């Protein structure tokens, strides 16, 4: 047999013209990418796909290198990176057939208005649930953010901290956009009072749900949907109206394999490519409405859902303030988590006992009002300050100032509660 192997090599080891290739930079994990690689290869055996992986926050410097690092296609859920590179003139105009590809889902743009990138799939925000846990604690399934503010959920939630967990900034911002600045922060404060914080690198949300440590976790859908499709005893409830995080695809200006790149982009957006998103290990939401006819049972259809609850969240308008939101969330809650919870518990007990409504309003206002107003959040200088990655001294100083302001408010709230407790 060894002789046979040697002969095969001797006869068949040849130099041949290399296949056309396309280099795709992505932040998608292996489970996602491998399905697209395999299916694309079957459709285009003449093109070899090379995948490079890069975290969203690390893709910008990589694609800003000379020759854009040899990358032909960028495919990722990082709108900020697509926008920044568009400003640098880093993309070619996409030359794809639009047939069957909508430009919007309600307020959510599904294509760059200048034609440089397109949405390839979406992920929706909502609540991962442990049904057994809810049953045990006799808790109803929440269907919107307002429900989570109810004190009956106290001690039952796990909430990702937006400055630490990649998908959370848009999720938190969607609450602010949907309910308005003041009511949105007030809702978040009440939810924080009910929740354990989840930070990347510590105990994972799923571990909390699976172990029964907590029963509900606001999150992005595909983690849970994929876990459920793989057999996890979990559920997912979308927060209506659903906010979506879009992923995009673009071809680099420096691409040396633009024809192959076009083929790859066209495949991802094609019916065949979009249907791959239904796979149990992916579970993202296609942007082609027509493929939902072939969706697995119980698969969420954002186009159908939007008929009853039109999409109102626009991530593009949210981007400039996400860093600012994160800093405010930390100053209000992350840095005072246990204190916020203790104060809310006292306030809620006082209200239950029939405490003075006016004073209760005062305490609640102290606990739920953001350090800056809805008008101030539009301050471009402030937005730019917090858009910097890694931070700097002035950003840290501003964060400390807000945190100290919240500290004083919490002191004041505590004094009011102490006074109320006096006979």
């Amino acid at each position: 047999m060894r002789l046979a192997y040697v002969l095969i090599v001797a006869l068949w080891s040849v130099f041949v013209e290399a296949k056309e290739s396309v280099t795709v930079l992505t932040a998608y994990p292996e489970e996602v990418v491998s399905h697209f690689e395999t299916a694309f290869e079957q459709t285009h055996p003449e093109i070899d796909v090379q995948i490079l992986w890069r975290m969203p926050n690390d893709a910008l410097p990589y694609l800003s290198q000379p020759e854009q690092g040899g990358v032909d296609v960028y495919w990722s859920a990082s709108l900020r990176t697509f926008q920044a590179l568009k400003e640098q003139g880093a993309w070619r105009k996409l030359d794809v057939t639009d047939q069957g590809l909508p430009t919007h889902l309600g307020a959510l743009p599904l294509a760059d208005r200048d034609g440089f990138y397109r949405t390839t799939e979406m992920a929706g925000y909502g609540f991962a649930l442990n049904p057994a846990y809810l049953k045990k604690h006799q808790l109803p399934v929440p269907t919107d953010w307002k429900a989570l503010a109810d004190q009956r959920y106290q001690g039952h939630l796990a909430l990702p901290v937006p400055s630490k967990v990649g998908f959370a900034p848009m999720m938190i911002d969607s609450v602010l956009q949907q309910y308005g600045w003041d009511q949105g922060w007030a809702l978040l404060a009440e939810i924080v009072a009910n929740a354990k914080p989840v930070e990347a690198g510590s105990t994972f949300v799923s571990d909390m749900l699976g172990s029964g440590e907590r029963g509900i976790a606001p999150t992005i859908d595909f983690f849970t949907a994929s876990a459920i499709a793989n057999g996890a005893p979990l559920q997912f409830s979308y927060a209506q109206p659903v906010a979506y995080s879009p992923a995009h695809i673009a071809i680099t200006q420096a691409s040396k394999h633009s024809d192959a790149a076009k083929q790859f982009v066209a495949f991802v957006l094609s019916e065949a490519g979009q249907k791959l998103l239904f796979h149990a290990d992916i579970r993202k939401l296609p942007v082609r409405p027509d493929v939902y006819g072939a969706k697995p049972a119980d698969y969420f259809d954002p186009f159908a859902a939007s008929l009853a609850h039109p999409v109102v969240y626009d991530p593009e308008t949210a981007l400039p303030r996400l860093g600012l939101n994160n800093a405010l969330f930390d100053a209000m809650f992350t840095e005072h988590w246990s204190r916020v919870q203790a104060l809310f518990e006292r306030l809620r007990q006082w209200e239950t006992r029939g405490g003075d409504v006016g004073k209760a309003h005062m305490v609640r206002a102290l606990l739920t009002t953001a350090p800056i107003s809805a008008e101030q959040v539009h301050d471009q200088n402030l937005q730019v300050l917090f858009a910097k990655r890694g931070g700097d001294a002035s950003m840290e100083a501003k964060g400390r100032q807000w945190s100290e302001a919240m500290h004083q408010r919490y002191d004041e709230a505590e004094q009011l509660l102490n006074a109320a407790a006096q006979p």
Partner: protein
Amino acid sequence: MRTLAVALLFLGAIEAVAADASGFEIADASREAFSRLYNDVTPAMREQGLRGRGLFRASWVIPPAADSAIVGLGPLYNQLSCLSCHPKNGRGQAPDTPEQAMRSMLVRLSVPGKGSRGGPLPVPAYGDQLNEQGIPGVPGEGRVAVSYSEIEVNLAGGESVKLREPHYRFVDLHYGPLPTDVLFSPRVGPPVFGMGLLEAVDEQTLIDLAAKAKPFGIKGRLNRVWDAEKRATVVGRFGLKANVATLKQQIAGAFIGDMGITSPLHPQENCTAAQAACRQVASLQQPELNSERLESVLTYLRLLQVPARRHRDDPVVQTGEKIFAEIGCAVCHVPTLTTGDFPQMPVLSAQTIHPYSDLLLHDMGEGLADGRPDYAAGGRDWRTPPLWGIGLVEAINEHSQFLHDGRARNLTEAVLWHDGEATTSRQAFIDLPPAKREALLAFLRAL
């Protein structure tokens, strides 16, 4: 690292299922059955295992990059994640056509002769493994195109089975032709669960298994390999030819060989003298997988549980189990072993396990031979692969390819490729009445 951690948020979601199980065997037939972590350990060990899980599932990146924990891919490599070759911790698969790339498969290379420690001699221009991919600016080494011819086997009862015999062709070779006497061995990524338990089986158990008299002309022997940490020759038990001494060395070998990630055990990049562009690539850090992170991956793999047998009360499965023993399968695919004292991770000690393997080398005949010796393993020798979990491969990995190179498209074909020491058992399988053959397969599907 934030994105990596975020991506992992829900990976432990179905560990609630695992809570019902006892020991390292878990009653779970879901698509996550190969990915359960044993939980009854200290919080620190669990944290270490979870960090290892993150590294095992990570897609590694090329420098420059912000996240130094996963930087160091290449310059030459096969895939960018451990999961590529071990999808869902299970089995990879072979391409079906010459045009398809090897996405969860690789090809080992060597030239005749032995290295100073007894292992294979690498091919001068290519090393000991064909790395199909290179980072930008570094050409990949080439590709391997697989095609198949068919061999028909007739079974008792009139059934006919077509086996596919693979043929390999090296194409797009970028560093010159391969030597005419090159030896090569295609390998599909095997499952990675239960490896800690196999490591905890003490050496004397394997020595005794090798020495034990066996029926049907079956022998079974130990591989003796170089242990780079002990600086000594020891019994090999990992790798498809039992050609690696320890799980840690298996992991470090896969990191450098498959992904070009250096570690304390492999501090040099995998560039040969002929690969100038590869040698000129600057590394951000060395080693790229430091000792602490290597230990994390080791802990993760050691803590992975094993799916328990299913359908034990099914009479057909019970019949199949009897036939499995009667026709000699269980001589090599030993159903039960007991782990020894394992101070490196005491929870793995004294466990009764059901790997359906003796971890020994067996001559499997010409049909499966790769002709590439590896330490004491000859070109026809393969280590008995564990069968635990084999019945879940189709559901979890969405294919039913088996054997070292994925040539078998189902369990029947896998059995029929057995030869050499398994000749008698193979013939007995062919001669079984169809109902009994189906019972044997039902038993395998219940593992």
